[in-house]
C-alpha cells in the first residue's frame, strides 16, 4: 500500500556543513533505506608523504580537518616519535594535552551548535557558537590560529604558553563554566529537545562494539572506551573518567559530548596545575624507519595514524583511520527506520566529519 519516495539527501544541504550524500528511500516520512556515499572531500593527502619531508608533513596532517586539526598534528608527531623512539620534553606533553582539550571543547561546542541547528533550534546554535568564541580566542592567543593551530611539531611543540597566560586560561574556563552549564542544561533538560532526541537513532551496546563505533558514539552506548586512557601525552598523569551513557540514542550521544566539555575543563585545570617547567621541544635528526600505529582520542573518538617510514625523509605510507570512518557503519544502522525529520539529527548525532573521513 504505502508508496515509496526516493530522494537525494546531500551533498549540498544546509544541515550538512560538509558534503555527504544519502539516497533516502522513504515511505511517507519513514526511512526505509539510507545508503551513504562519501568522497566529495577526498583529496588524497596521504599520498603527499611522498612529496613532503616528514617534518613538513605535519602541516598537511593538521589540515586533514580544521576542527580536530591540532590532535591530528599531534598524533602524527606521536607516530613519528614512536618510530624514532623519541622521548619529548614533559612540558611539551602537557602543552599538547592542554591544546587537545581546547580542541575538544571547541569541537564539542561547535557540534552542539550544529546539532541544535539540526533540530531547528536556531538560538541555541547561536549561543553555543558564541561560547565557542571564548575557546577560539584562547586558542588564537596561544597558537596564533583560530581553527588551524599549527603549534605541534615532531619532537615537541612550537610555542610555549607563559604561566600567567595558563592561569588566565584556567580562570577563563572557570568563568565560562556558568554559561556552559546553562547551555548544556538546555540540551539535557529542555522538553522540546528531549522530544527530538530521546529514542531517536538507538545504537545498541553490542552493535556499537561490533560495528566498531568509537568516541562519544560508543560511550553513549554504554562502553567506557576512551583512548585517552592509554595515557599518551600527559593524560597518564591526570585523573579523569570517561563520560558514559547507556541509552545509545541521540540524546545519550548529546549528553556524553556535553558532559565531556566539563571533563575537558577539569583536565585543563589539572594540567595547568601540574605543568612542569622546561624545554618545549627537542632536536630531531635522522629519518623514521619502521611502522607505528599512533592512537589518540579525537573529539569524535579514537584516531589512528599509521606511519610507515623507510629511512628516508619521505615516509612510505601514512594512513589515518578517523573516528568518522569508524562511525559510518553504526550510522547506516541507526538511520534505518527513523523519520525523515530525524535524518539530520541522526546524521549529526555521530558528529560526522567528512573532511576527516575522506582525507
Amino acid at each position, binding site marked *: 500500500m504505502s508508496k515509496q519516495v526516493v530522494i537525494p539527501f546531500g551533498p549540498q544541504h544546509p544541515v550538512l556543513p560538509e558534503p555527504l550524500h544519502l539516497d533516502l528511500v522513504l515511505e511517507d516520512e519513514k526511512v526505509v533505506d539510507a545508503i551513504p556515499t562519501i568522497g566529495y572531500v577526498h583529496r588524497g593527502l596521504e599520498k603527499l608523504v611522498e612529496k613532503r619531508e616528514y617534518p613538513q608533513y605535519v602541516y598537511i596532517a593538521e589540515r586533514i580537518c580544521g576542527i580536530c586539526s591540532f590532535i591530528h598534528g599531534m598524533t602524527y608527531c606521536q607516530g613519528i616519535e614512536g618510530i624514532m623512539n623519541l622521548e619529548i620534553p614533559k612540558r611539551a606533553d602537557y602543552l599538547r594535552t592542554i591544546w587537545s582539550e581546547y580542541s575538544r571543547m571547541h569541537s564539542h561546542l561547535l557540534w552542539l551548535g550544529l546539532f541544535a541547528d539540526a533540530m531547528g533550534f536556531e538560538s541555541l546554535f547561536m549561543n553555543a557558537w558564541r561560547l565557542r568564541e571564548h575557546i577560539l580566542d584562547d586558542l588564537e592567543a596561544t597558537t596564533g590560529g583560530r581553527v588551524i593551530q599549527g603549534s605541534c611539531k615532531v619532537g615537541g611543540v612550537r610555542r610555549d604558553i607563559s604561566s600567567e597566560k595558563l592561569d588566565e586560561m584556567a580562570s577563563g574556563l572557570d568563568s565560562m563554566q556558568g554559561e556552559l552549564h546553562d547551555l548544556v542544561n538546555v540540551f539535557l533538560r529542555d522538553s522540546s529537545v528531549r522530544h527530538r532526541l530521546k529514542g531517536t537513532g538507538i545504537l545498541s551496546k553490542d552493535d556499537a562494539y561490533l*560495528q566498531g563505533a568509537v568516541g562519544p558514539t560508543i560511550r553513549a552506548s554504554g562502553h567506557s572506551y576512551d583512548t585517552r586512557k592509554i595515557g599518551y601525552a600527559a593524560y597518564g598523569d591526570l585523573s579523569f573518567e570517561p563520560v558514559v551513557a547507556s541509552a545509545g540514542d541521540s540524546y545519550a550521544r548529546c549528553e556524553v559530548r556535553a558532559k565531556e566539555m566539563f571533563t575537558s575543563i577539569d583536565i585543563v585545570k589539572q594540567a595547568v596545575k601540574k605543568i612542569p617547567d622546561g624545554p618545549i621541544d627537542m632536536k630531531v635528526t635522522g629519518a623514521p624507519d619502521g611502522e607505528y600505529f599512533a592512537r589518540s582520542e579525537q573529539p569524535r573518538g579514537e584516531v589512528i595514524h599509521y606511519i610507515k617510514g623507510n629511512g628516508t625523509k619521505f615516509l612510505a605510507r601514512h594512513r589515518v583511520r578517523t573516528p568518522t570512518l569508524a562511525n559510518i557503519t553504526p550510522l547506516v544502522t541507526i538511520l534505518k527506520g527513523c523519520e525523515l525529520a530525524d535524518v539530520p539529527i541522526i546524521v549529526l548525532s555521530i558528529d560526522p566529519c567528512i573532511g576527516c573521513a575522506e582525507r
Partner: protein
Amino acid sequence: MIREEQKMQDITPDSLIRSVQAMKDGGKRLVQIGCARIGDIFEINYSFDKDYNFENLKLTIPSGLEVPSVSGIYTCAFVYENEIHDLYGIEITGIAIDFKGTFIRTSIKYPFGVVSSKEEDACQNKL
C-alpha cells in the same frame, strides 16, 4: 609520552578469515583495515582492540591477488575494504555492501596502486 607496544602477526590469505574470526571470538573489535604498498607488494593491516590492547594482523600479498572480505565477520569492514579497493585496486571479494569502485571516486584510478615519481610534480607551479 607512552609508546604503545605494537603487536603484529603475519598471516596469509588462507588463514585470514580464520584469524579474523578468532579475533572476533576473542571479543575484540575491529579497529581498522589499512593498506600500504611497498614496491610490488601490498601489506594489508587488520587492527583489533580489546580493553586498550592493540593487535594487528598483517597480510602481505603480491599485486593482482584477490583477497576475501572479512565484512561477513565484522560488517564495518565494508568501509575499509571499499576504500582499499578504490585506492589500491586490490580486488576484495564478497564485501557486504559493495560500492564497486564508487566509494571514493578519484581522478586517477587506484592512485595508491601506482608509484608516483617525484618528478611528476608538474602541478607544482600551475596557477
